[in-house]
């Protein structure tokens, strides 16, 4: 009976101890600063190599999922129309030729994030975490479990009225966009 009591006292401690190695760990990735899309560009592409990130390297082997993810920074729209910012992802280091090519072949990761004409807007952690797309998140997780190299694309979408006053989505040559102090914060799930 004494042995059983002793075991019963120790087991919760062991139970607590074994699970301390699992959990949620933040990995923050510095993006190019600033990310700029001029009026004559249709997108901005950045190849991200996670293998240069110490936090990622230390958790890569026990990574099992993404618990939370956010794109932080301040989006500045210097154009005359409201704009939606989107981020797309492709699972390698190749770059597509234009925004239409990106939309056709890559995967939407984040957005839309609306920024008013001639104004700036900060993407907060809470707000940004709700804008992630599950398909893009899956691609990101696959890459994090794989070689850790992928390409992120910043795109803008602007609706304007054409000559027939029909709203048309326009993705280039209209407004200038920049994202300052951009950070990708990925909270990964680690296992024991």
């Amino acid at each position, binding site marked *: 009976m004494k042995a059983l009591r002793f075991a019963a006292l120790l087991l919760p401690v062991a139970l607590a101890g074994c699970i301390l190695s699992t959990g949620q760990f933040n990995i923050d990735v510095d993006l190019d600063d600033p990310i700029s899309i001029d009026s004559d560009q249709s997108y901005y592409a950045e190849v991200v190599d996670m293998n240069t990130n110490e936090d990622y390297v230390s958790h890569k082997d026990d990574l099992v999922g993404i618990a939370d993810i956010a794109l932080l920074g301040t989006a500045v729209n210097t154009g005359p129309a409201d704009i939606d910012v989107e981020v797309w992802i492709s699972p390698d280091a190749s770059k597509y030729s234009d925004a239409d090519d990106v939309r056709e072949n890559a995967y939407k990761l984040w957005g839309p994030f609306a920024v008013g004409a001639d104004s700036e807007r900060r993407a907060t952690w809470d707000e940004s*975490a709700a804008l992630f797309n599950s398909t893009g998140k899956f691609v990101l997780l696959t890459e994090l479990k794989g070689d850790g190299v992928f390409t992120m694309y910043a795109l803008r979408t602007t609706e304007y009225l054409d000559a027939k006053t029909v709203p048309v989505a326009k993705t280039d040559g209209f407004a200038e966009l920049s994202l300052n102090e951009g950070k990708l914060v990925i909270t990964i799930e680690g296992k024991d």
Partner: protein
Amino acid sequence: MRLCRLLFIVSILVLVGAASVAQAQDERFGIVVHGGTMIPVSQDDNEESGTAFGLRFPINTGTFLGFEPYIYMGSGKEMTADFGSGPETREGIDLTSWGANISLGRLVRPGFHIAPFVGIGNNTLHRESGEISKIGYNGGLELGIAPGKMMINLRGEMNVVDIGESSRKWGLISLGLGYRVTPNF
């Protein structure tokens, strides 16, 4: 998580084994209101301690094995982190948990007691960006005294919510105030 599940099952077996050799006691039950702090463990996106309040219903089984349905609600607190471009805030995770514990030693008894316990329950984790409900496992230790019909207990426990291949974990420290009931049957 597989190791944790195994330890949980072993804990249950040890408690049941202990109960089988224990002497029978009068049946009694109680009701305990408790409150305390809920401390996230290894959660970089949910670091701040919150508060938790709930009810427990300890029941003597006539053996050394105690049985205790419970429910509690925890409120996560907003956290702040700086990733290099100024402070960023993230809302905490609210936790609602209900289930049952099995203890080694009666939780309803006169005098002083120390009782280890393990339990299993349903846990709902809520954030504005989403909500999930998952099975969780808990274990800990209760220190209690019972002056008269009252019960006062201090409890430390760990709650591990199984979210797939990983887990979300909280430590809970709570103070409970209860009342012992001896039915006339």
